[in-house]
């Protein structure tokens, strides 16, 4: 029998989780924008707007300490960051385009060497995804293989129903555990036929065909055409749920301080600059080409996954109006 949770009980669930000292993160109005923020009560949850920034920073913070160092009695000491204190976290209200990204990023952060900063947060997180009922002009999740009701990446998946409640499906053991621990809040429905889907989204792209074109068109006038307007501001990467490039720098003196990992972007002009001054990606078209290649070819070559969830944030954020979905459609339409 399908399970449901009423809107009121969904908010009650958040209240209960907060009482249990879990960190609950979800879309919340913050100033003039909606962002993924810690929720202090169920009433904080806003489900009518895609948060301005993606949920990846929950697992991969904008900036975090990876060690501290201190000179004591003339001897340097390096101290690890205590990751055992990373809190149990429930991400609630992530649409498929955001819920899918951690599952994609798991591959790079656990490839050969394990990045425990990312992986420990993943282990301690439960993702409650929610089917998306309304996209906007920039959304293109359906074009890159997701759907408004893609459960991939979610532990528990909610489907908005016409009566205002939500159909629930435990996708993983973590999701089942969350439901079992708060069984009183969940009810049984005769059916969830009343699921609320209003849009099918944009037309599906042939990702294999796009990848194939990229393989044969490393040098193509297309890249220069885009570079005419790209300003290399990095907004697209910072706001993307799947971009994961980072830098490592020290903050502090030679005596005491911390080493920090922080977001970086392949669109920045110095990203690949060698100490000698030689820069393999010395102009913007090479940098933007790398962005597209990484998302739709290199990541797939290496990990068998597309590094894009079609959330559309890069389209909305680009100060010069570069539309990645439009570029992909252009490539998709090419014959050779």
């Amino acid at each position: 029998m399908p399970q449901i949770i009423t809107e009121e009980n969904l908010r009650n669930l958040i209240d209960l989780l907060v009482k249990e000292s879990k960190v609950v993160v979800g879309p919340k109005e913050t100033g003039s924008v909606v962002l993924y923020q810690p929720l202090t009560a169920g009433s904080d949850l806003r489900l009518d707007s895609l948060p301005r920034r993606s949920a990846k920073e929950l697992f991969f913070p904008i900036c975090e300490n990876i060690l501290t160092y201190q000179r004591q009695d003339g001897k340097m000491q390096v101290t690890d960051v205590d990751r055992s204190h990373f809190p149990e976290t429930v991400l609630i209200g992530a649409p498929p385009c955001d819920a899918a990204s951690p599952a994609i990023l798991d591959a790079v952060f656990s490839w050969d060497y394990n990045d425990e900063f990312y992986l420990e947060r993943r282990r301690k997180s439960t993702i409650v995804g929610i089917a998306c009922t309304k996209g906007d002009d920039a959304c293109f999740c359906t074009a890159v293989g997701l759907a408004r009701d893609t459960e991939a990446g979610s532990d528990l998946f909610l489907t908005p129903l016409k009566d205002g409640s939500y159909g629930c499906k435990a996708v993983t053991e973590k999701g089942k555990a969350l439901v079992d621990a708060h069984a009183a809040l969940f009810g049984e429905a005769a059916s969830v036929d009343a699921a609320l889907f209003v849009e099918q989204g944009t037309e599906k792209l042939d990702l294999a065909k796009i990848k194939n074109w990229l393989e044969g068109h490393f040098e193509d006038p297309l890249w220069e055409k885009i570079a005419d307007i790209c300003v290399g501001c990095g907004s697209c990467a910072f706001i993307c749920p799947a971009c994961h490039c980072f830098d490592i720098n020290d903050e502090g003196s030679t005596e005491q301080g911390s080493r920090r990992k922080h977001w970086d972007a392949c669109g920045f002009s110095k990203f690949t600059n060698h100490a000698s001054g030689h820069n393999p990606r010395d102009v913007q078209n090479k940098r933007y080409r790398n962005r597209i290649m990484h998302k739709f070819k290199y990541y797939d070559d290496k990990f068998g996954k597309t590094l894009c969830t079609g959330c559309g944030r890069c389209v909305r954020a680009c100060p010069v109006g570069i539309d990645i979905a439009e570029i992909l459609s252009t490539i998709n339409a090419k014959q050779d």
Partner: protein
Amino acid sequence: MCQSKNIYLPNLATIEAIVDETPDVRTLRLVFQDDQVRENFSFRAGQFAEYSAFGAGESTFCIASAPTRKGYIECCFRSVGRVTESLRRLEVGDSIGVRGPYGNSFPIEQFYGKSLVFIAGGIALPPLRTVIWNCLDLRDKFKDITIVYGARSEADLVYKRELAEWQERDDVRLVKCVDPGGNGPDFDGKVGFVPNVLEEAAPSSENAVALVCGPPIMIKFTLPVLERLGFADDQIYTTLENRMKCGVGKCGRCNVGNVYVCKDGPVFTAGEVKAMSQEF
């Protein structure tokens, strides 16, 4: 605090010796402070490490000493940026951080029984110096060893004392050169660019491998010379010196196409390099 390994945590090493190779190139000899790390640390020629000057950050260099020389490692760097300037300010006895070894290596066992031709330019001798000493320490396993090394000027030649040592040996052929105009009146090497000097030295390609390391422009003009000398793509090895940060295939900085230089490299054959998207 019981937790899984932090891959970004360096081991501490003490600077045991400092040698100024040129006015802006310096070699540091490093000894790990922890007894167990010192005993267990091993690497292969061609691998690199991340070296940190606390307060400034980390920089990537190859391990310049030979894996056959135990108890210490050496790195060699030019002062060009914030981290290298900070490394340069450190003195004997100071601590630095070392993460590694990372990346692949030169397949030295596959070179047994062959002649070796080393070709290096400027500050790119250190990545080959590790192999040169590794092979000289196993001298019986190889046939002829030729080293062609050039720099812009006499002052820019690194490891001058070792060049003198190689020059003295009768089981090594060293051809040292500087660019035209970079030679003093007493310079005892050749005057000319590395590719030209290599062509003139004409080492045999028969049962030989060539190891090339240098600035992109030198490599670009050296590969055709090696081809003319009869070296096939799979007889030529080089290292890609891409900008790296994490060293472990996460930060997304060093890729050439779908190749992560830090994990799949930095050592590649000329054939492998030619197959890559030309973005290095």
